[in-house]
């Protein structure tokens, strides 16, 4: 069975189309990533799938339940960790869990047992009676994940699960998430703007930009799809270099400010030829690097921008602002 099936999901806020006809489906047991810059529409997509917002048009089912007509069935079968913290800081970790368990109508004995287990799973058992306001960012995140699992959801939504956490904590969380998926078979859909996170965790990745999915595949296939290795040459005259490299083994050339990105199979073999050719034309080279493609290159390839560029973009800032205000 498909855990999630979205068809032409669209959400607009006035003139702004935050999510523009997104379609995808996620198999049971998969870890699925929505990768894109802030304001790309990832959180809005999650909000619609988790019944927090109604789609403007299109349909989606989660665990076979329609997100609009079977709201409560969807809610019972999903767990969600929001991008922004959603704990009560004045309560202890145990009380936060207990509150959640009661809301999902888990009986007393069962509730206590599961809370104990989950707090142990995320390594918070010995701090369970401390107020959440004394917790660090990483501990809070782990608590939220434990809470999201308390009612044994089939699908877990993680909206930017490691945003603002230090690298070590991030690594820990990745291990937890992978283990949950492995041991409990929970389907996980996560949003992120960290390439590395998507690369390490996700079985399949949808690259989202400006409300649409521009590419969707496994990390491996996405990297292959853009045509082999990446050679970046910075030079005072990048345009000429681009004109020069017309050999059939060059599968793609992109010009940027002050540099050229060349894609080709088996770059190691062709580098000497490239350097010689540029040299003979009398063009200077400031630097040259060769590497395997990353998701960042994939993103650049499909959107023409790096994620960081995108985030600095003025329009995106306005989107973010509007999103912040709606909160």
């Amino acid at each position, binding site marked *: 069975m498909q855990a999630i099936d979205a068809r032409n999901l669209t959400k607009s806020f006035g003139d702004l189309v935050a999510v523009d006809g997104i379609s995808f489906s996620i198999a049971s047991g998969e870890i699925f990533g929505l990768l894109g810059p802030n304001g790309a529409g990832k959180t809005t997509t999650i909000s619609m799938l988790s019944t927090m917002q109604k789609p403007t048009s299109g349909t989606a089912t989660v665990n076979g339940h329609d997100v609009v007509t079977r709201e409560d069935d969807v*809610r019972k079968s999903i767990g969600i960790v929001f991008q922004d913290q*959603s704990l*009560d800081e004045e309560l202890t970790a145990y009380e936060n869990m207990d509150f959640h368990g009661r809301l999902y109508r888990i009986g007393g004995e069962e509730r206590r047992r599961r809370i104990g287990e989950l707090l142990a799973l995320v390594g918070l058992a010995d701090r369970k009676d401390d107020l959440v306001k004394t917790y660090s960012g990483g501990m809070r995140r782990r608590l939220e994940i434990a809470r999201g699992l308390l009612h044994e959801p089939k699908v877990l939504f993680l909206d930017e699960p490691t945003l603002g956490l230090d690298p070590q904590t991030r690594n820990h969380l990745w291990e937890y998430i992978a283990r949950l998926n492995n041991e409990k078979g929970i389907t996980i859909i996560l949003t992120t703007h960290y390439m590395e996170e998507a690369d390490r965790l996700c079985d399949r990745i949808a690259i989202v930009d400006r409300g649409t999915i521009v590419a969707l595949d496994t990390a491996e296939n996405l990297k292959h799809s853009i045509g082999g290795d990446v050679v970046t040459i910075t030079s005072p005259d990048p345009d000429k270099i681009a004109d020069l490299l017309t050999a059939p083994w060059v599968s793609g050339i992109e010009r940027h400010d002050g540099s050229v990105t060349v894609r080709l199979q088996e770059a190691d073999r062709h580098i000497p030829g490239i350097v010689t050719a540029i040299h003979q034309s009398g063009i200077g080279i400031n630097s040259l690097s060769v590497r395997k493609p990353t998701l960042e290159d994939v993103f650049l390839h499909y959107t023409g921008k790096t994620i960081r560029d995108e985030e600095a973009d003025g329009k995106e800032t306005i989107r973010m602002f509007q999103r912040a205000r709606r909160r």
Partner: protein
Amino acid sequence: MDIVYTIWLRNVKRYLRSKSRIVGSLGMPLFFMLVLGFGLNSIVRIPGMEEGYLEFIIPGIVAMSVLFTSVFSGIQIIWDKQFGFLKETLVAPVSRLEIMIGQTLGGATTAVIQGLILMVFALFIGLQPAGITGFLVAVGFMALIGVTFTAFGIAIASRMEDMHGFQLIMNFVIFPIFGLSGALFPINSLPGWLRPLTLADPLTYGVEGIRYGLSGTAQVHPLASLAVMAACAVLMTVAGAYLFRKIQT
């Protein structure tokens, strides 16, 4: 019912844990009680009442304390919204009505506790309880004020984005509601133009009800007070529930 209890429990726990809030919100009512009560006790005579002014305003100040605490409890939903906790509640498979009722009862409970603390203080400065029945009548009215104004706070919070508007609500809604009620003066001796305003103020009936319970005399018949307060509690709860249903996170 479990859900209502869960939300109620969280509210009460939070309240009991915030010692500074409990003490802080006792400050103004105590100040009013002491300064106005003792200050005006010797020069103000209430026509038709045996007691002095101090005994007269104690029920009014108790009502004031319940009023402020409950409005504040209701408006706290904005904090839940800003700190993100509201989402956790709203994404659960429970109805918004249950959440709203739980919040209302939680707020009303904390408001009643606050009023009771004040009553204990009042015992030391001259409150002479009229007996257990009267006390229960007073608590009943306090609960009705609590429900009415917590629901009112929730209704307002459902429409407000952040706490910036809070001052506005306090100054132009809550203080007039307190000032116009018969908390500080007997409504029978008001000038003709002011009387309708006072009678239109739901808190007037709450104050009169508490006063009836505590001192055995009131200027509005207690059953009339009860009917008006009960109706207000139901109406505000319905209005609050309606607005809360549309709350956006």
